[in-house]
């Protein structure tokens, strides 16, 4: 699958790169869905011998392919929420020389990056590569509820039900973009939704 080119945007919006194998004693790779392809693109037997993969398939069938790479440790989780305590535990144990690779959806990368930062890793030292869905993790600025996997703009807040437009303003601390009421000045006047990048 070809990679999506995000349009240029404002300075709080994250930019993602392309994973590369970097020298390190240990490698932690956290991925969801099509992120598996980015891992396969850099996998070598030497790299995998010191790699821990945490993978959330989200309905895809890449898990066996990743397992076949023979990583030192492999975990397949049913959801990010189910995997997060494991991620925290692994980061707590991490030593100098650990390389962190995040790949897949923006929501996965943002949340895992946040965990790594809370464990003391500067975000600039963490590699990321976007793959798969361009859906966003959105915070409603009004009720503070997070809606996962938002693909359309405007969308309805899954917590308070307000009609929100999708901003590019992004908080690393929340691992979320900001959603703001679109019809505050003209209640009920909500334009038809379309894809975020359409």
């Amino acid at each position, binding site marked *: 699958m070809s990679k999506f080119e995000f349009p240029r945007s404002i300075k*709080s919006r994250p930019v993602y790169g392309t994973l590369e194998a970097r020298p390190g004693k240990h490698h932690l790779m956290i991925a969801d869905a099509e992120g598996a392809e980015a891992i396969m693109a850099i996998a070598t037997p030497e790299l995998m011998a010191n790699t821990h993969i945490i993978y959330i398939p989200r309905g895809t069938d890449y898990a066996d392919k990743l397992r076949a790479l023979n990583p030192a440790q492999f975990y397949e989780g049913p959801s990010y929420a189910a995997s997060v305590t494991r991620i925290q535990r692994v980061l707590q144990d991490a030593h100098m020389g650990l390389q962190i690779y995040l790949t897949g959806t923006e929501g996965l990368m943002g949340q895992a990056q946040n965990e790594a930062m809370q464990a003391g890793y500067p975000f600039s030292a963490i590699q990321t590569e976007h793959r798969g869905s361009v859906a966003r993790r959105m915070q409603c600025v009004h009720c503070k509820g997070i809606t996962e996997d938002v693909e359309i703009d405007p969308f309805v807040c899954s917590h308070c039900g307000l009609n929100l437009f999708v901003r590019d303003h992004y908080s690393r601390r929340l691992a979320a973009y900001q959603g703001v009421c679109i019809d*505050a000045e003209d209640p009920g006047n909500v334009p038809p939704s379309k894809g975020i990048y359409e």
Partner: protein
Amino acid sequence: MTIQFNDETFRDDYTFRNSDWAINRFPFPFHEDSYMYAVNMEQHRGGPEGSVYEKRFDVDEHYVAEMRDRAMVLADDPLRCQSLPHMTLAGWDLLELIMVSKSEDYPDLFELHREGDQWRWVNKPLGIDDSFTFMDETTLPYGPMEYITRQTQGDFCVLDQREDNLWMDAGIVTTQADWSLDFDIGMNFFEWHAPVPLAHEKGIFVRALKFLLNIQQGAPARRLNWTMTVNPLLDTSPENYHKWGVQKTTLTPENIGQKQHLRVELQTFFRLPRSNALVFPIRCYLCSFQDLMTKPKWGRRLHRVIRDLPEELATYKGFIDNRPMMLDYLSQFDDGLPTSPGVFPDVETEPPLQK
């Protein structure tokens, strides 16, 4: 002079009013007949007697009512005041700066008595007389930043300085021009300004950051910013935008003079001694169009600035839809005469309206 504190509201029935004294000292932000973003920084070392620039932390007739409004905002939404764990020392720095400044600048209103780390703070307008141990959080009812900024007009951002950048790591934000502390906390200088149009391309933020990183203790700086607000609503927060946004549609040609307010921020910047943090108070002043129009120079100038403002800025500042109605109103106060340079109204020398 002794300040007479107004009993007034910034919500619901909006009884907020500016006295003649407050109109005369309103910090009109336009020094010429046009506006474009600029760093426009100057030293914050006093100013004309009676002006809002004179004291380090200006106290005016709205003080008591503004503090009451802040308490209501915080009761509704405690997330408007946040401090990341490493910012407590900066909070004490800020408490000291404000207590020392206010007790020196307004000795009839505020008193600070210090005996080693045993401090007594008296705030007469708010009826507070508290004794506490400096640097011991358990002796105050709130954290040090929240304690003192519940007693000081204006929003406060406390910025940590590291990696050649400033980080929005603490603040109290209840009188903001539509930005969310809860969302922006933890961001660096470029990130929290990301949504501002045009200014990045003009290199404004790179230059401003360079200036701010070099602010020294005892040498604070200041600048003005501005926007527009319908009704004298202090809490124009994104959090509550779905409630107040609709008020923008209540303007009519009949009520615009009374309802439309120019909202000016006096932004100041102080280096804090122990933490090396930078505190960034953002003090909001509101003035209705009809009160501004009592100064012929301000009437002429405001019309020209709003008329010629680039569309992006009018959109970002949230008044693009109301601009035509504003211009209909303001044009009545522009007779085409030239205006004197500078922000002050110059009522002695500027001619009265010629139409």
